[in-house]
């Protein structure tokens, strides 16, 4: 299929295709980061993760409406406020859920799955009741729309680069927090040995709540960023959940680096296949490959060296 095109055409397509893959990579990383913390570090299966993302998206929607009507002068900058708000709202809801639901179930990981599935149904219906069943569109500030003309034939979408930048920032932030801060050390201590961590004076309950809140908050930011590329409806969250879990599992659950590596490999595979095959086939082949590899190497790409 590539025979009929000129070399410059082809090379610029390859550049743009590379960027398409990178954007997908950012999206996947954002989706998976929150879950990597909740599932990878805490071992909690949060099936309502998608709904926490959508909460962030709805916050962005509300924010854009508010700025448009009340503070039109500040509209270009509303997105940053919206993301902060999304983080706070999803994080707060996450902490509430941890307190009301999750903390009773730490010893029964499979049961958290069922309970959070119930939670996701309730949240979906709540969104439907509050925001209506239709999808809502978020108005973007002008500077986020359009693309950068690199050469005559290469164009890079601005919002894609924005998502990439956010992903970079958040990933760096999470890495710092988990591996360079006191809080991160506490989280890892609790993960590795809860009674021992408690014995040396770490308030494990508080750490759990904050960790869960952090994971949900990041999901909220992801949701906020997605309003630029995707849609926001009551059931949009469900679309992401399988992909997200696969990424985290494929990466090796307890490893942040693994999550990023797996998001990278899955997104590149899918984006390349999509270019050569049809969209549906590409998706099936990617998922099959991931499941196949997981069957041969269940611990995922990267893993902590622990005997289970």
């Amino acid at each position, binding site marked *: 299929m590539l025979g009929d095109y000129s070399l410059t055409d082809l090379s610029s397509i390859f550049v743009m295709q590379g960027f398409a893959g990178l954007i997908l990579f950012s999206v996947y990383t954002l989706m998976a980061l929150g879950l990597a913390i909740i599932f990878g570090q805490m071992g909690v299966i949060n099936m309502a993760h998608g709904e926490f993302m959508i909460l962030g998206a709805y916050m962005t929607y509300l924010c854009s409406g508010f700025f448009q009507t009340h503070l039109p002068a500040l509209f270009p900058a509303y997105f940053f406020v919206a993301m902060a708000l999304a983080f706070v709202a999803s994080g707060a809801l996450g902490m509430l859920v941890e307190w009301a639901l999750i903390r009773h179930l730490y010893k029964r990981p499979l049961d958290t799955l069922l309970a959070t599935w119930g939670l996701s149904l309730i949240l979906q219906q709540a969104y439907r009741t509050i925001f209506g069943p239709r999808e809502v569109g978020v*108005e973007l500030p002008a500077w986020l729309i359009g693309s950068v003309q690199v050469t005559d034939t290469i164009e890079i979408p601005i919002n894609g680069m924005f998502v990439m930048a956010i992903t970079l920032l958040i990933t760096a932030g999470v890495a710092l927090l988990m591996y360079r801060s006191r809080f991160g050390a506490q989280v890892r201590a609790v993960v590795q040995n809860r009674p021992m961590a408690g014995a040396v004076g770490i308030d494990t309950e508080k750490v759990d709540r904050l960790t869960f809140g952090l994971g949900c908050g990041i999901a909220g930011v992801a949701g906020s960023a997605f309003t630029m*590329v995707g849609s*926001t*409806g009551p059931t949009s969250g469900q679309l992401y959940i399988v992909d997200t879990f696969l990424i985290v599992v494929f990466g090796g659950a307890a490893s942040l680096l693994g999550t990023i590596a797996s998001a990278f490999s899955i997104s590149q595979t899918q984006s390349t296949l999509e270019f050569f095959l049809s969209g549906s086939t590409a998706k099936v082949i990617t998922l099959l490959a991931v499941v196949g590899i997981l069957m041969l190497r269940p611990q995922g790409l990267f893993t902590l060296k622990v005997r289970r």
Partner: protein
Amino acid sequence: MAESKGNGLQSALRRRLLMGLAGVPAIALMPRMAFAAGPATATVNTTGLAVTDTEVTVGILHSATGTMAISETGSIQAEKLAIAQINEAGGVLGRKIKIIQEDGASDWPTFAEKAKKLLVNDHCAAVMGCWTSASRKAALPVFEQYNGLLYYPTFYEGLEQSKNVIYTGQEATQQILESLNWVAKEKGAKTYFFIGSDYIWPRTSNKIARKHIENVLKTKVVGEEYFPLGHTQFNSVINKLKLTKPDVIFTDVVGGSNVAFYKQLKAAGIDLSKQTLLTISVTEDEIDGIGGDNIAGAYSCMKYFQSLKNPNNEKFVAAFHKMWGEKTVIGDVTQAAYLGPFLWKMAVEKAGSFDVDKVAAASADIEFKEAPEGYVKIHPNHHLWSKTRVAKALPNGQFEVVYESKDLIEPNPFPKGYQ
């Protein structure tokens, strides 16, 4: 329920228990024989439908929950509006319409189950309902088996015709062929790229479009891509568009994917005021989610747009807004759903009876001159004669009609040479 614990229930129960022992299937026939009121009812209702001297029951069967609720809400609203207007004007054969609403929950088997409930338990005289092809395919055997009457509002792929269904939306050839002719003539289009969601309606529609493009217009399709429902990443296919540079992008992407697709198209720098994009899946409802700015400049082909200028439509839009709020938009399917109750009412009055067989037979050649889309007529094949219009999306979320077929187009669900 709670107070009916007297002797009546007990004896009814005992009778049923005996019946059950005698022959379980007989129970199904029981309630059907239970009706026998005034003579008027007896003459207009010989098959045991839920018709009394003052009321007639009609079902509404759409998804109020699940992914399809986004699209189907408008249809529910339009049908309720139409029924309210009919009741205000005196009802059907002097009887007010009573609504029983069921939720298909975006789940095809649920549609079949609820359709059966509406027909077998509630004895609805007609059902306004279904939206996706899949829900119709699931419910159709139920309507045929129990001899119900379904008014189906969505534009769809054709290849179907049933005594028990009136299709108030367009079938694929009505919608597509005229608009392809228009784009070929008006834009001088030579190459086309198809992008669709992966299910029967886009695939069949694209097949028809491809045959027309290749055999009639003698031009070329340079690409055809399908994505799973709910897919949200279109950057790769957008790159393919940039590589192949088609004259026309022809899309039938549905649901949430739509939003992602147009946002990413715009972000990738494809300017719809220069690049012709023809869609058969975007109505005002979808633009609500996509955002007018993101799709402005695209052409949509439908039989109805909210901005149509005619007295019928102005009255309809005003009434719709009065009932459901100023901000609600009205798309093609919403208008088609609005037609259902009126077409049924006229067929019942023509037949002088609620009996499904008589209503179905009387439906052919029913004319509805007050239709918001202008004028429609039921073809003997139970589809509607209608006009096709091409309109350009505006940033405010409305459409500006740029072309309207001169005559009503004949519905042709089994098009020769396009299968």
